[in-house]
């Protein structure tokens, strides 16, 4: 990946290649084939009429219909993927509760979130650099490992999160902020996402041509455009 882009660090390139291989799975609750389908369903969001209509509706729950595309995933999972991909700022707890009631277990949900958001980082960087999106990987054989973190705790998020001692870092924020705990119900999901994210940004002493405040301006503008509260 990024072979022609010399100004991207080797660390980032390696992290993205690792993530792409890991997406090819198997994961803990989905096969490699299913995880690759999650990436495909994410990419197809821009061309799906229902997804586009929903995004433009006054409420994302005002429009019903069927998503375009045929995937090795049930419609509940496709709904999760399309909404996270296209309209993340309007997800609600009521919607999440319905997703769980419709049969997606919280640990499965966490794995879907991890695969989709990891692929969004990789695809966004490729597209923004004027590169073609990477080819979908070939699925690795094997069954899901079914490993979840039974010590994950409730802190008011929609899903149980990683339990860590409360410690403050030099920059004044927690050593492990809540966002870094959010996918902690499934350790491999947490690792997949943050293994990809980490070479992009750090809360202090950022290794970049951007100063810390420039990086935070960019981060904050993305946050605002995605209507993200955190």
């Amino acid at each position, binding site marked *: 990946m990024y072979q022609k882009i010399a100004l991207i660090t080797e660390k980032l390139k390696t992290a993205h290649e690792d993530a792409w291989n890991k997406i090819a799975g198997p994961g803990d609750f989905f096969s490699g084939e299913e995880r690759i389908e999650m990436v495909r369903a994410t990419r197809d969001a821009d061309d799906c009429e229902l997804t586009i209509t929903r995004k433009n509706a006054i409420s994302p729950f005002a429009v019903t219909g069927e998503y375009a595309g045929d995937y090795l995933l049930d419609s509940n999972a496709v709904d999760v993927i399309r909404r996270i991909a296209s309209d993340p700022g309007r997800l609600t707890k009521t919607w999440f509760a319905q997703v769980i009631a419709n049969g997606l277990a919280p640990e499965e949900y966490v794995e879907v979130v991890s695969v989709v958001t990891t692929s969004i980082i990789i695809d966004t960087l490729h597209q923004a650099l004027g590169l073609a999106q990477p080819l979908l990987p070939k699925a690795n054989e094997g069954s899901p490992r079914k490993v979840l973190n039974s010590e994950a705790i409730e802190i008011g998020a929609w899903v149980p999160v990683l339990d860590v001692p409360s410690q403050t870092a030099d920059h004044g924020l927690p050593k492990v902020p809540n966002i870094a705990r959010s996918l902690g119900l499934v350790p491999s999901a947490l690792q997949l996402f943050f293994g990809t994210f980490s070479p992009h940004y750090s809360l202090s002493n950022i290794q970049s041509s951007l100063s810390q405040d420039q990086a935070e301006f960019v*981060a904050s503008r993305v946050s605002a455009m995605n209507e993200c509260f955190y």
Partner: protein
Amino acid sequence: MLLSLSGDKTGKKYNLNAVNTPSGHAGVEDEHWLRLITELTMTKDWEKLSYTREEASRIIGEQKVIDTLVVASAFNGITRVADATGIPLDTDTEKNTTQMRKDTGIQSFNYDEKSTRYDVFN
């Protein structure tokens, strides 16, 4: 909120309202280009981004353009993790940013307020 915390550390004051709107000036160096590149990435305007990248590279340098995309792409993922998991603010951040969230409109992105706005059709 990250920029607000950066200001707390350095003592520099930023116009945080400018972060939540498509115009205005927050007070960061090269802000025009950082904003433009970020917004074109987020709106997926790849064609315009392509020539903006070239123009910006001549003015602020190619490394800075690429590093802007590196940060923007990462936050395009992590904001979705936050929104999809309903992760609450860290305790101190919640305490120390109450007024700022109100002033800048970030409070309206709160999960409860979103539910009130959007769940009426659900």
